[in-house]
């Protein structure tokens, strides 16, 4: 934790009071203390079988890496080693791409869509059957709360496979009058914030369109992808149609530069996305990127404030703020600023931080030490540049990586915390006076992935959303996902869409 000057920090104590200042008429706050405290309610996990070592999944089989190297996967909530993951080198990646190419040529590209769809339906059903086990694994491996992995991640994972299973034999309806064929072998690199869900977003449309895949999970969250591999085996998906290579950025780099890959789909940081785009420039490979964001969540003075506050919470504290479309820049109309801040301040002190496996936990662990350091560094910059930090006084466990729900006030557009993606539970609050100003400020960012608008006035919603340069705009809600709804960015948030009919396009060649 960075050191802070006391004058810049407002910490809520047990009674929700601010420091030693007397509570004036406008400072009244509620007391969210220990009266009737909830007993621990941990999700059972004794039945979970983690292997001592996870191998690579190539050609339908689990194989040891040619590199002979393994790295530790750590539970970020306890810092305990969970298991060992294979580190794939260039040779391993080459084997995976070859397996994918063979499967593409001999089986998958020749198979009628109807048959491909059957496999996808089967995979979706198996995911549903094993949903609870996968949710627990996701929580242990990545630090996200069981509440979210159980109620959001896993249902969406299954829904995504179901949705694209339905498209597999209807592709000619998706793009009427056009002939199409799959691209071939897709290299897919996914992030650590929604490990299984991102795997589903990548694999389901690629397979539905007739491509074969080499998937590269994030270094810190490989376990559930390898359990998904077991499900693929159980579904009797033909060998090599999906291959999974684990490892660091070097593994990903080997996949990106492999000459026999036809398409790269990457979700992750803008920095890495730019490097991938440069590496692929001048090649035949197709590319889609889903990168960072710094979304504006705009609250007008005619918004239902209680609901807007819930939208702020859902926008920035969902999944510890490890969300590329997080509503990390809050724009509040000046006339309701005090009201919104007071409510937000009380609301964050009700968020329960701790053991992610406890069913009552709202805020889980930060995914890794590196990410925690990055959050701390940016928060520090905010303090140095004179913004005021408000934090919940949630007790942080001694072990593991944690950051309390926080927000900054007194932020201006030139602060780093208003420009850079923090990717943590830290919100930057700014104000505006008119709708025109709100739009100008919201669009004043290199990113353009998502945005939110809060107002009771329907006409205002339609006027505003058409002027926001963001791939997804939510009105009077936030962070809602559905497989039928396309998702993707403008500007430095990337290009290409995932989800919906649009999500088929990056995996097809139309003629």
């Amino acid at each position, binding site marked *: 934790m960075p050191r802070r000057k006391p004058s810049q920090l407002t910490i809520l104590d047990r009674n929700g009071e601010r420091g030693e200042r007397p509570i004036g008429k406008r400072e009244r706050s509620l007391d969210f203390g220990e009266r*009737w405290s909830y*007993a621990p309610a941990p999700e059972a996990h004794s039945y979970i079988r983690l292997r001592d070592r996870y191998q690579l999944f190539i050609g339908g089989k689990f194989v040891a890496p040619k590199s002979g190297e393994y790295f530790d996967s750590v539970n970020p909530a306890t810092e305990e080693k969970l298991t060992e993951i294979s580190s794939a080198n260039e040779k391993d990646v080459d084997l995976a791409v070859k397996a994918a190419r063979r499967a593409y040529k001999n089986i998958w590209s020749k198979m009628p869509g109807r048959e491909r769809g059957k496999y996808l339906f089967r995979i979706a059903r198996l995911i549903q059957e094993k949903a609870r086990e996968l949710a627990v694994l996701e929580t242990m491996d990545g630090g996200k709360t069981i509440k979210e992995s159980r109620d959001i991640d896993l249902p969406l994972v299954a829904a995504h496979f179901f949705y694209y299973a339905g498209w597999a034999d209807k592709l000619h309806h998706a793009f009427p009058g056009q002939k199409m064929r799959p691209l071939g072998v897709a290299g897919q690199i996914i992030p650590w914030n929604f490990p299984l869900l991102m795997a589903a977003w990548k694999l389901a449309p690629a397979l539905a369109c007739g491509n074969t895949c080499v998937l590269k999970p994030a270094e810190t969250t490989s376990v559930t992808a390898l359990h998904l591999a077991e499900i693929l085996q159980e579904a009797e998906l033909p060998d090599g149609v999906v291959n999974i290579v684990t490892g660091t950025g070097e593994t990903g780099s080997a996949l990106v530069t492999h000459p026999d890959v036809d398409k790269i789909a990457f979700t992750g940081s803008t920095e890495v996305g730019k490097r991938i785009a440069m590496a692929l420039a001048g090649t035949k490979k197709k590319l889609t990127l889903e990168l960072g964001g710094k979304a504006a969540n705009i609250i007008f003075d005619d918004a239902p404030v209680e609901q807007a506050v819930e939208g702020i919470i859902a926008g920035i504290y969902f999944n510890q703020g490890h969300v590329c479309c997080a509503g990390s820049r809050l724009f509040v109309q000046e006339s309701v600023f005090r009201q919104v801040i007071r409510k937000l301040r009380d609301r964050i002190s009700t968020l329960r931080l701790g053991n992610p496996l406890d069913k009552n936990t709202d805020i889980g662990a930060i995914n890794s030490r590196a990410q925690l350091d990055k959050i701390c560094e940016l928060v520090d910059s905010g303090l140095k540049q004179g913004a005021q930090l408000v934090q919940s006084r949630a007790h942080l466990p001694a072990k593991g990586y944690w950051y309390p729900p926080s927000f900054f006030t007194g932020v201006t557009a030139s602060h780093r915390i208003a420009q850079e993606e923090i990717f943590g539970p830290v919100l930057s609050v700014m104000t505006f006076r008119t709708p025109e100003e709100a739009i100008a400020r919201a669009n004043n960012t290199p990113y353009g992935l998502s945005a939110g608008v809060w107002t009771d006035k329907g006409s205002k919603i339609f006027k505003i959303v058409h002027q926001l340069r963001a791939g997804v705009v939510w009105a009077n809600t936030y962070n809602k996902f559905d497989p039928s709804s396309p998702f993707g960015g403008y500007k430095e948030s990337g290009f290409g869409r995932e989800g919906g009919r649009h999500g088929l396009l990056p995996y097809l060649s139309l003629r």
Partner: protein
Amino acid sequence: MVEERAAAFTRRSIKTSAKLEGLKLVVSMMDLTTLEGGDTPGKIAILCRKAMQPLHPRYQVPNCAAVCVYPNLVRMAKKFLEHSTVKVTSVATAFPAGLMPVKLKLQEVRTAVRDGADEIDMVINRANFLAGEYERVFDQIAATKQACGAAHLKVILETGELQTYDNVRLASEIAMRAGADFIKTSTGKISPAATMPVALVMLEAIRDFFYETGIRIGMKPAGGIRSAKEALGYLVMLKETLGDAWLTPDLFRFGASTLLNDILMQLVKVVDANYQSADYFSLP
């Protein structure tokens, strides 16, 4: 978002010690209610006895907060509860419709208070409210508050007839500003009665009133809450919306009749680790 937020409270997992403590808290917040045309002294006696001692003393269950009856039975209930801390609540103001001349409604309130009612549960005039005559609604509440004297006033909004969240919110604000000590969802005679989203809107109104004035208004969901699980959901919603200060019978009540025995059944299960049949719990 209202429904979504309300549903989130029901997904809290309340186990072991928290469950036991929560169930006891629910009992202590209960207005054990009988509002039937056939209520007789005999029925009131049974109800009062149950409110005073809901379960065998070894379970250390607190008494209910109050019994809630029609005005004619206040005197009877008061007599039965003489040596207990259980309060007598009377519905009044032409419950449940509220469509009587104001003069008669106020007279009814005064009579109930004179007979010993500690608390008055009035109904707002929904006809006035839906016709947009908010001043009339306000004035009647203010007049009733005056007629109550020292008795506490709970104002029933009958949210099932107001229907929209906006109406519920507005009616809550009118009631609080006119002098309500509590706001209450329903009479129990109209379906839907209490629902969690509606109760949440009312709790939020109470929260804003507190932010503005520093005054803590109480809340009473009534009707339709039949299981311990639902009741604990309301308690979670209360704790996470208004905080610790409201976790007391002085500021939160459940209006119910059949709920109590399900609470007791769950409570015995937590203590003894096995379920008893319903035959082991006396009917209220």
